[in-house]
């Protein structure tokens, strides 16, 4: 519950304005971007709907419209606008949307340093092969090998990783759809979706995200080597 600093009335945590005196409410400790925007915790989002909600709420909160209000209301407007902007930014992008869902569902971050430090087991083989290939290409480059050939080898090394990334994007989409179905109260899977099933989906999503971050790092290291190869 939130308490209105103007009239003292109580308000549900997702309310933006006091139900009693209709003043803007202080933000308090809000943590759920979905509910803030009035959305269910689904991963497939209609982009136009999100934009519309963002614009509508901006028109309600923006500090421009509280210029003559009391300091308390001005602060509330600033905090709510900042939070709205954060929420919009996080939910607009599918990957940060999943990251936010994992966070509010209580899973450890997929971005922390421990999480990204070790190679995901499913990628061990690719990582090993790529590192060897990159070492070799680096040696060849330093001994002045034909840049055209080096570039061709890098392209060749990139292909399987790119394929892996595309596969991951597909899996993320599938898992997102599964999550949404498990969340739906009357969905086919939803009826039987237990807490364990849902947890399994979230774990799988987190696993894919970790791998995805790692794949992006691998692609970045190929790109770095590509720019190091002399031109012409």
């Amino acid at each position, binding site marked *: 519950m939130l308490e209105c600093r103007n009239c003292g009335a109580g308000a549900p945590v997702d309310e933006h304005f006091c139900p009693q005196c209709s003043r803007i409410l202080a933000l308090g400790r809000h943590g759920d971007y979905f509910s803030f925007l009035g959305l269910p915790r689904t991963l497939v989002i209609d982009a136009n709907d999100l934009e519309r909600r963002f*614009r509508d709420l*901006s028109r309600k909160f923006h*500090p*421009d419209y509280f210029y003559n209000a009391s300091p308390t209301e001005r602060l509330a407007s600033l905090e709510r606008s*900042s939070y709205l*902007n954060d929420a919009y*930014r996080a939910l607009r992008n599918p990957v940060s949307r999943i990251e936010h869902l994992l966070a509010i569902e209580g899973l450890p971050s997929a971005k922390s340093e421990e999480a990204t430090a070790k190679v995901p087991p499913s990628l061990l083989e690719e990582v090993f092969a790529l590192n060897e290939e990159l070492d070799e290409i680096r040696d060849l480059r330093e001994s002045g090998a034909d840049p055209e050939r080096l570039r061709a080898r890098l392209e060749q090394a990139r292909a399987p990783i790119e394929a892996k990334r595309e596969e991951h994007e597909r899996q993320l989409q599938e898992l997102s759809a599964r999550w949404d179905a498990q969340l739906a109260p009357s969905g086919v899977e939803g009826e039987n979706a237990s807490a364990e099933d849902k947890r399994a989906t979230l774990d799988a999503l987190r696993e894919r995200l970790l791998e995805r971050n790692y794949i992006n790092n691998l692609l970045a290291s190929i790109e770095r080597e590509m720019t190091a190869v002399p031109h012409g």
Partner: protein
Amino acid sequence: MGKVVGIDLGTTNSLVAYVENGRPIVIRDDSGDALVPSVVSVGEDGTIFVGREAQRRLLTAPSRSVYSVKRFMGRGIEDVHGEAALLPFRVSGDPGGVVRIGIADREFTPPEISAFVLRELKRRAEEHFQKSGEFDFEVDRAVITVPAYFNDAQRTATRDAGRLAGLEVLRIINEPTAASLAYGLDKRNRGTIAVYDLGGGTFDISILRVEDGVFQVLSTNGDTHLGGDDIDRLLVEIVLEQTGQKELAAIETIRRAAIQAKWDLSDVEETEIRIEPSGAVPAGYRKRITRAEFERLIRPLIDRTLDPCRQALADAGLEAKDIDEAVLVGGSTRIPLVRQVVEELFGREPHSELNPDEVVALGAAVQADILISGRREMLLLDVTPLSLGIETMGGVVSKIIMRNSTIPASGREMFTTGVDNQTGVDIHVVQGERELVVDNRSLAHLHLQGIPPMVAGLPRIEVRFQIDANGILSVAARELRTEIEQTIEVKPSYGLTDQEVERMLIESFEHAEADFEARLLIEARNEAESVIQATEKVLRRAQIDGAAPELLEPGERERIETAVAELKAVMGGNARAPIQDRTHALNHATQHLAEATMNRTVREALAGRNVKDV
């Protein structure tokens, strides 16, 4: 409560506008001139001159006059070494501190110089309101614009300037966004817009989406040291090389001639840089220059605007073909090459229906009106141009708020202590996109105090960074176990502390403004100046085109030139009456030419229509 205005505080010119009956209007002086040159000059007796009069004094008292001070706002001496060389005024400052500008025995910070310009605009607006019969004509609040790519220090310096000028700064808004507000007054507009703003000293590109009256900036980029000044400098350097001149007065005379030639080349294919023999340049100087030569010279400068444009598109997740409209802002977009480059980039002819010099002030006035009226038809959602971060181990930056985040924006970071009973923590805040602290802009050193004594590593201090709708940062910190708020001491890297601003405010009252008669004299000179300029422009055009001899009757040119010379002879004097008399005489002498020119323009316009109709 007094009046509210919108101010475009430009590198070269500044202007002020307000909203009347829902429409933004630029405030002009009696001769119809809206632009106040952003030039400040200090007289021998300490009198402060601003605008046209100060611009004239650039020729007669170059070492006591300052221009382009916007380039120094919120910057350190190490940033500006290169460009200070060709400027007539003294630029100094301690390493890692604010730039100081020396005039005779006095020193000013850039916000103080800008405050003189703002005060002049405030005065001009108040005079306007008083003349139109307003009872409460005092101007006490303003929206002031800055380049979108200005960092926190540059924005804060602008806000300080406003305070020093006796204005409550309602909001700092970005110039390209302001321009889009002025263009988007028709609220049914929707689509994706690119605003290309090349001014006297700065370049900005902003990509916006407009829908339901919400102007949402998707991305912005730019260069705060790229503009018309740099183009002028290229021309000046050519002349300096050929004449071997070094004196301040000569440089200023050459700069004037270069600017005139630049302006000419926006209208005609060929002109000359022409300097009449005078004390500053005894031999005089003439050099023909074609538009093609000029374009070859400035091409590298104009090309420097392209990378920021591409980066802004990429950050918005768009391609050039996704842009529905491109809009031109800033005086330098009058240059045909600039228009051509923008058209090539976005694949469509850019808009320039509104005067590129005035459109930003109009937008600022609209925003000021939104703020005080609370009207909700339009809303501007801008972004922060640069990422905000803090220094971590090894001089690496940890980013807290990413660039192009919609503002207001906030970010949090957790800190703890390294030794037992530690009660303070130091945090270095930077702005920029690079990995290492040294490659970014240092904003401030924060010192958190009042952490409850605990075992090392136990305190959980949450530091909250808040960028407000002005794009300006504030910081708060709280230890979460005890819920105790920490006080934060802020040492801005390139800014003034609150105490310094207060002291300057008091000083500015002591240096009272010039008296009423001096003001009238200045206005008479301004009037004279603008009549001379208009006259010379028409005469020049007639000469360069060779197309207008039929406009002049025999002996008319001579009569006009005599009247100009007579006016020039008295203009520098301190008596107002002769200036006004001879201005009147010049007006009389040019009456026939003015009518003839106007008739020709009308004829041409009609002729143009006939061709189209056929």
